[in-house]
C-alpha cells in the first residue's frame, strides 16, 4: 500500500490550476524526488501533498484516508513538511526552534514530556547541531540554519518527510551533506522522503523514485535510470543534453549542451 497518494488532484491558487487531475503514488520507505522546470508546479504539488493547499478538486490520501478529513494534528504526527526558505523570528535559538517540532504531540498540560526532550536532543545530534543549540538562528550560516530547520522537522518524528528544495542557497559541500543526511534517515529509520530538487544529477543520485513534472502533469515517473533520458530533459526542460553515467554513483548524469556547445562539437 502506498502511504501517500493523490487521486485526480487539482491545485490552484487564485487563477488557473497549477496541477491538473494528477494521480501520483509515493512509494513507502523510499526517497522520491520531484524535478521539473521553474513554474511547473512541483512546489505546489509538494504543498498539496502536505495539505498546506486545499485542492480545487480531487484529494490527497494518507494510508487511503482523505487527508483533509483527518485531524490536522494527527496528520502532523505522520507527515512533516519543510517549505522553502523558512524564516525564524529574531533571537530564536536553535533548540527553541527544534522544540517547536514537538507541537503536534503537546497539549495544555503536557508541554514538555521526556519523549519531547529525548527527540529534540536526538534531532540536534543527528543534524550535528548540538554544539550550536544555544545560538540564535540569525547568527548562523545558511547551511547551519538549514540543518536547524531540518532538526525541527526531525523532532516532529514523522514517517513521511516532505522537503522543498532543501539544498537551495547552500554551497556544494553543504548540499551533499544535507542530501547524505536525508539518505541516512531513509536507510536507518526507513522514513519516506519526498523532496523537490533543482539539480538533476543530485536527484538521480539520491532518488529511488524520480518524478518529472511538466505544466502541472507528471510527464514521467519511475527509477532514475528509466526516467532520466535525453528525450525527457528535452521535453520537460526544453534543453538538449547528453546522458552519461555518473562515474562515482553509476546513476544517469545529465550534461547539458546549450548554444555554446552544439551537437557537432560533442564527442561522447
Amino acid at each position, binding site marked *: 500500500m502506498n502511504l501517500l497518494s493523490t487521486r485526480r488532484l487539482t491545485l490552484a491558487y487564485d487563477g488557473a490550476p497549477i496541477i491538473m487531475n494528477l494521480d501520483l503514488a509515493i512509494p513507502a520507505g523510499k526517497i522520491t524526488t520531484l524535478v521539473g522546470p521553474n513554474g511547473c508546479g512541483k512546489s505546489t504539488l509538494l*504543498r498539496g501533498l*502536505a*495539505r*498546506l493547499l486545499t485542492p480545487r478538486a480531487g484529494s490527497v490520501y494518507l494510508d487511503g484516508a482523505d487527508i483533509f478529513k483527518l*485531524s*490536522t*494534528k*494527527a*496528520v*502532523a*504526527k505522520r507527515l*512533516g*513538511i*519543510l*517549505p522553502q526558505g*523558512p*524564516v*525564524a*523570528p*529574531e*533571537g*530564536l*535559538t536553535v*533548540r*527553541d*526552534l527544534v*522544540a*517547536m*517540532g514537538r*507541537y*503536534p504531540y*503537546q497539549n*495544555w*498540560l*503536557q*508541554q*514538555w*514530556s*521526556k519523549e*519531547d*526532550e529525548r527527540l529534540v536532543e536526538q534531532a540536534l545530534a543527528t543534524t550535528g547541531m548540538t554544539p550550536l543549540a*544555544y545560538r540564535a538562528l540569525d547568527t548562523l550560516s545558511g547551511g547551519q540554519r538549514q540543518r536547524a530547520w531540518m532538526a525541527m522537522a526531525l523532532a*516532529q518524528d514523522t514517517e513521511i518527510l516532505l522537503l522543498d528544495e532543501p539544498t537551495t542557497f547552500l554551497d556544494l559541500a553543504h548540499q551533499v551533506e544535507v542530501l547524505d543526511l536525508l539518505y541516512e534517515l531513509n536507510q536507518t529509520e526507513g522514513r519516506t522522503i519526498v523532496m523537490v530538487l533543482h539539480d538533476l544529477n543530485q536527484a538521480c543520485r539520491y532518488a529511488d523514485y524520480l518524478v518529472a513534472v511538466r505544466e502541472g502533469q507528471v510527464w514521467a515517473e519511475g527509477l532514475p535510470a528509466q526516467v532520466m533520458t535525453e528525450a525527457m530533459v528535452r521535453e520537460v526542460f526544453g534543453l538538449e543534453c547528453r546522458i552519461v553515467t555518473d562515474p562515482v554513483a553509476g546513476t544517469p548524469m545529465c550534461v547539458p549542451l546549450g548554444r555554446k556547445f552544439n551537437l557537432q562539437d560533442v564527442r561522447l
Partner: protein
Amino acid sequence: MSKSWLVIRPRQLPLSFRLDRRMPAVLLVLGLVTLAAMVLNVGQGEYPIPPMEVLKTILGLPTLNPDYPFIVNTLRLPRTVVAFGVGVGLAISGTILQGLTRNPLADPGIIGVNAGASVAAVTLIVLFPNVPLFALPVSAFGGALAVAILIYLLAWDKGSSPMRLILMGVGIASVLGALTTLMVTFGEINSVSQALVWLAGSVYGRSWENVRALLPWLAVFVPLSLVLSTQLNVLNLGDDIARGLGIKVEWQRGLLLLIGAAMAGAAVATAGTIGFVGLMAPHLGRQLVGPTHEGLIPIAALMGGLIVVLADWLGRVLFAPIELPCGVITAAVGAPYFLYLLIRNRKR
C-alpha cells in the same frame, strides 16, 4: 540536563512545562521593581506620603496619619492599579500582534487598532452621555476588532511586507482620528469635555469603578493569551510551518486576533490612547527572556504595566505642579524607539 530551560515535570501529575531559565529571576526582579514603582506613584502628589506609610496603609496597618487610608486607598491607589492594568493590556496586545504579523513594528497604536477603539468609545460617550462605565470597553473592543479585521483583510494577505502593514495602519489610524475629531466637534459640550480628557491618554482621576470595568477583561484574556502562547510560537514561524505542525491557522489566528483586540480595546476604553506601550514592552521583554511566548507574554505584560506606572509618575514629577498625561510621556520615549526599530529593521 537543559542549560537554557527550566523544566517542570512532577512525577505524580500528568503535567510538563518548560520555561526559559532566566524566567524566575526576571519575573521576581521585574515584579519587585513594578511594585516599588506603584508604591512610589501612590506616594506622589500634592500631599506626599513616604513609601513605607503607603505600604502600611495598603496592607491596613496602623499609620502615622488618620487621613492616609482615604488618600491612598480611595484617591490614589485605583489610579495606579488602572495604570498597571492598562499597560498589561496594551503590552499583551502588542506581543500578540507582533507574533501574528511576524512584524516587529506592529503595535495596537501604530496599526490603528487603538484608533478604532477610540472612535467607538468616543462615539458612545458623545451620543449617549449617560452610558455606564462598563459599556465603554465593550464598544472599544468592537472598534478595535473592526480595525484589526480590516487591516487583516487589506494588508495581511499572502505574507505582506512589514512596511505595507504599517502604512496601512497609519492611514486607517489617521482616518479614524479625523472621525474622532468630527464626533468631538459635533458633540454636546459636556460629553465632549469628558471625552477630551479621556482621549489624552491619561489615568487621571480613575476610580475603583474604572478598575472594576477593566478587571474582567484582563481576568479573561490574560490567561487565555497564556494558554495560546505555544500556538503563537508556531504561528510566528509562518503559515506553512504552522499548518505543517498541525495548527488550524485561520481559527487560531482569529482567536489570537480577538484577544489582541479585546486587550487593546479594554485598555483604550479605560485610559484613552497611551501609545507605543504595545511596541516597547514586547521588545524589552524579548531582550530579557527571548522570543518564545510562554515566557515573553507574562514578562512583556509586567513590563507594560511598569512602563505606564512609571510614565504616570514621571508625568506628575517632571513639571510639578503641572501634570502631563502619561500618554505624552510614553509617546516621547516610544516614538524615537519606534524610529530606531524602523531604521534597524530596514537594514536587516
